[in-house]
């Protein structure tokens, strides 16, 4: 049902936990599902130097959050706006159709972090 990559990221999630004084925070909640993902970013120059996450949800949501922190690290900040759910899903080695919301939620949360960084305003929770 789940790929080895997904299981690996579920078993040993990368970059878990909150960050002190992050440069950007983004959160996304799927109200129909109860899942919640929050990302913290450290940004230097125009690049994401560190990404961390906290997620409440099913196995795929946790794994998608974990792999997303690797996908964005050391990439230009603008890359956050281009990251798609399909790219997260592909990196995970695929998601069952009824678990695709995991990738969508993670991407929404990262885009929220990008908006937070650009506006410098209060962080927001978007709803996937």
């Amino acid at each position, binding site marked *: 049902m789940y790929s080895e990559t997904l299981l690996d990221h579920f078993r040993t999630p990368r970059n878990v936990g909150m960050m002190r004084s992050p440069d950007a925070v983004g959160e996304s909640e799927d109200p129909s599902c109860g899942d919640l993902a929050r990302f913290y970013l450290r940004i230097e120059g125009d690049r994401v130097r560190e990404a961390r996450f906290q997620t409440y949800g*099913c196995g795929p949501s946790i794994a998608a959050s974990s792999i997303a922190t690797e996908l964005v690290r050391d990439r230009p900040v603008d890359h956050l706006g281009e990251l798609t759910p399909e790219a997260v899903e592909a990196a995970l080695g695929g998601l069952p159709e009824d678990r695709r919301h995991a990738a969508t939620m993670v991407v929404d949360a990262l885009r929220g972090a990008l908006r937070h960084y650009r506006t410098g305003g209060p962080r927001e929770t978007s709803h996937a």
Partner: protein
Amino acid sequence: MRRVYLDHNASTPVHPDVLAAMLPYFSERFGNASSIHGFGREARDGIDAARETIAGLLRVTPEEIVFTSGGTESDNLAVKGVAGARPGGHVVTTQVEHHAVLRTCQALEQAGHAVTYLPVDGEGLVDPDDVRRALRPDTVLISIQTANSETGTMMPIDEIGRIAVERGIPLHVDAVQTFGKLPVSLHEPGIALMSMSSHKIYGPKGIGALYIRKGTRMVSVQHGGDHERRRRAGTENVPAIVGFGKAVELRARHMVEEAGRVSALRDRLWEGVRRAVPDVRLNGHPTRRLPGTLNMSFRGLEAESLILGLDLKGIGVSAGSACTSGSLEPSYVITAMGVPTDWALGAVRSSLGAGTSVEDIDYVLDVLPAAVQRIRALSPAGAA
């Protein structure tokens, strides 16, 4: 890695004696039981013996047992069969029935029947007084499970049976989770129909039975030949019926002793989890419960992630809820009991059985607290 199967309410492994009893009926005694020649008679003998075993355990006559393809078909036959004999009649059931009853009742509503879905209390029990109050002059059937598959809570069937007799309304019980696990006797007139399944009691899948008390008015749901005294058309699945009969024979011998052993293991699991894990609650009735069933809610995590975490350690448990299509519905059974959503989303069921050992339970107790802690630590709420 150790593998521990704690999902016996979903299905059970076929007992080796059951498999051995079935094998000759695939190749040597393969005849059609409706045929009058010797090949057919051999198959018929196998069916007759199984029917007598089941009837004997229930203390009813063999003619009152109809073989079906399983619990779902038995429920469909009972509910549609009785309601179909009285078009437009009213049916009383509960909100926590298996989908085989709930969705059948919903189909009846589409066909012009009225259905009352009774609530349950915080421990999953339906109030017999609610059953009494729900009855109407046009009520044609009461359908209530003997025990809930998710929580194991056992319904007050004796009291409901007395009400059914008083009012002269047939009572159907979905006994898929209790048949072969706990003694039952149908010689009292309360129960008119009872659904049974084979694969919950170490028999093969794809076979079940419906007890239909003599004189119960109903129509056929499946039409065809004269099989099963014209109550269920279709060539009999002889090897499966023989296996079902053997499974029942074995359970009849061992179930009382087994129920005690499994209850003790279940309680060991609960006590161990309760000591080691904060923010956990038991869903279901503390004592009126199936011997092997333990439904626990862990606050602050989603059941799917814990099930996956335990699966990676070789442990198989389940949840009534499922995060599908981006919509996580907490289990309708747990919700009907009034359990708050943040607890209901973390409801996990362990169901123990014949293969479960003390070592299995202790292994789960070694693994589970850390698995819960790990998943809670990933969550924004857990880390806050």
